[in-house]
């Protein structure tokens, strides 16, 4: 309970004393109409991958809720830690392997060549199965807001000197920030322009596939 109150007090302190809060409100007011369209049927209310959208947000939000309510539910730091790490592992895996591809058509991974060099690959797809505009908004909002919330928790636990929770928050931030960074690089790579000679490239890939 004390941790929840700490969070609340620090939030109120910053609201009263920081002009940045005004700008945050402006950003949120721009985003709220989009959030409104998520829940009201209108022109943009289409879901091509409802399960992917749900699970994209589910594990992240539940992890944050568990962190805030942990002390009411169970007295044990250990079980809270293990539960949050488990939820965030599921979230990391599902966002990296499933929801990114389905909702926005982006994919990233690391592969090692034969000579042992490490290669990071970022892919963009323009295929037919990509999610709608609504789902893309859900994806990016979920991807960006949750690491920001965990960063906020980092500062609250740091300033309230609850150091053992700090290790949990650092682990959570590393999970969330890894996916955010990977998808931002995919997005940046996609906007640098598409290759004009795709025919020869895909032709070679087609030969590769045929010969497999």
């Amino acid at each position: 309970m004390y941790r929840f109150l700490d969070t609340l007090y620090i939030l109120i302190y910053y609201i009263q004393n920081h002009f940045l809060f005004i700008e945050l409100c402006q950003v949120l007011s721009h985003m709220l109409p989009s959030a409104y369209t998520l829940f009201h049927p209108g022109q943009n209310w289409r879901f091509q991958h409802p399960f992917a959208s749900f699970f994209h947000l589910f594990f992240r939000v539940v992890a944050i809720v568990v962190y805030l309510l942990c002390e009411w539910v169970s007295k044990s730091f250990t079980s809270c830690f293990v539960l949050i790490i488990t939820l965030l592992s599921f979230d990391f895996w599902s966002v990296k392997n499933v929801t990114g591809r389905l909702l926005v058509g982006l994919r990233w991974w690391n592969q090692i060549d034969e000579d042992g060099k490490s290669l990071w690959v970022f892919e963009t797809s323009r295929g037919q199965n990509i999610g709608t505009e609504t789902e893309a908004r859900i994806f990016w909002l979920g991807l960006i807001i949750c690491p920001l919330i965990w960063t906020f928790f980092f500062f609250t636990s740091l300033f309230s000197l609850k150091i053992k929770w700090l290790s949990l928050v650092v682990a959570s931030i590393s999970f969330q920030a890894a996916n955010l960074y990977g998808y931002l690089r995919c997005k940046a790579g996609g906007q640098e322009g598409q290759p004009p000679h795709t025919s020869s490239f895909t032709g070679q890939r087609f030969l590769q596939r045929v010969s497999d």
Partner: protein
Amino acid sequence: PDWFHWTRTSFTEASRPFAGLSDVSISEDIPVEGDISVPVGSSRRDEEFSTLDEPVKETILRDLRAVGNKFIHVLYPKRSSALLRDWDLWGPLLLCVTLALLLQGGAADNDDQGGPQFAEVFVIVWFGSIIITLNSKLLGGTISFFQSLCVLGYCIMPLTVAMIVCRLVLLGSSGTVSFAVRLIVVTASFGWSTFASTAFLADSQPPNRKALVVYPVFLFYFVIGWMVLTFSPSQ
């Protein structure tokens, strides 16, 4: 098929990003060769997820099989491609959590929730692995950052097994005999861990630097082994 529409930008760790693949003729010295000669694994990825249900299960099973495969490779440590080529950090995470849970409930806890001890294990394992990896990279190792973390994490498995054995032994008795048994088990598993990880890590170093790389690994597993050996359950 969907893979027709995938466009790809790739980055090696040493090169700066190039603007798409707009000019194939530039590709002589940039490793587009590694890009075009696509390993079978990624063409398999292209065919996945045409439907949501089945391929998710397949991907989960594939990842689980990869993790299990690596555990088996730790049991027979020889330089194989499994731990190095397809690195993943799920195994180390699982081992770290298991080890931290097993180290709970000790007499050293002054906090009834076992909090500091749990977070300590996490910090020691991950921070220690990162430091060793940085050390080996600064000494000019060819192994990549995540590969090294993967190897060090998976090689904690013998010490986790030793922890399970120690807890079982401590259920029986806490005397000198049990201490001798635990000492033997922990020393054996510590030697096994160090040997397994140096089999992978030392190969990536020039010969005159091998001792400099092995020493921190030795220290790392020594600290973990010490935590395992000095664990005593609270009465």
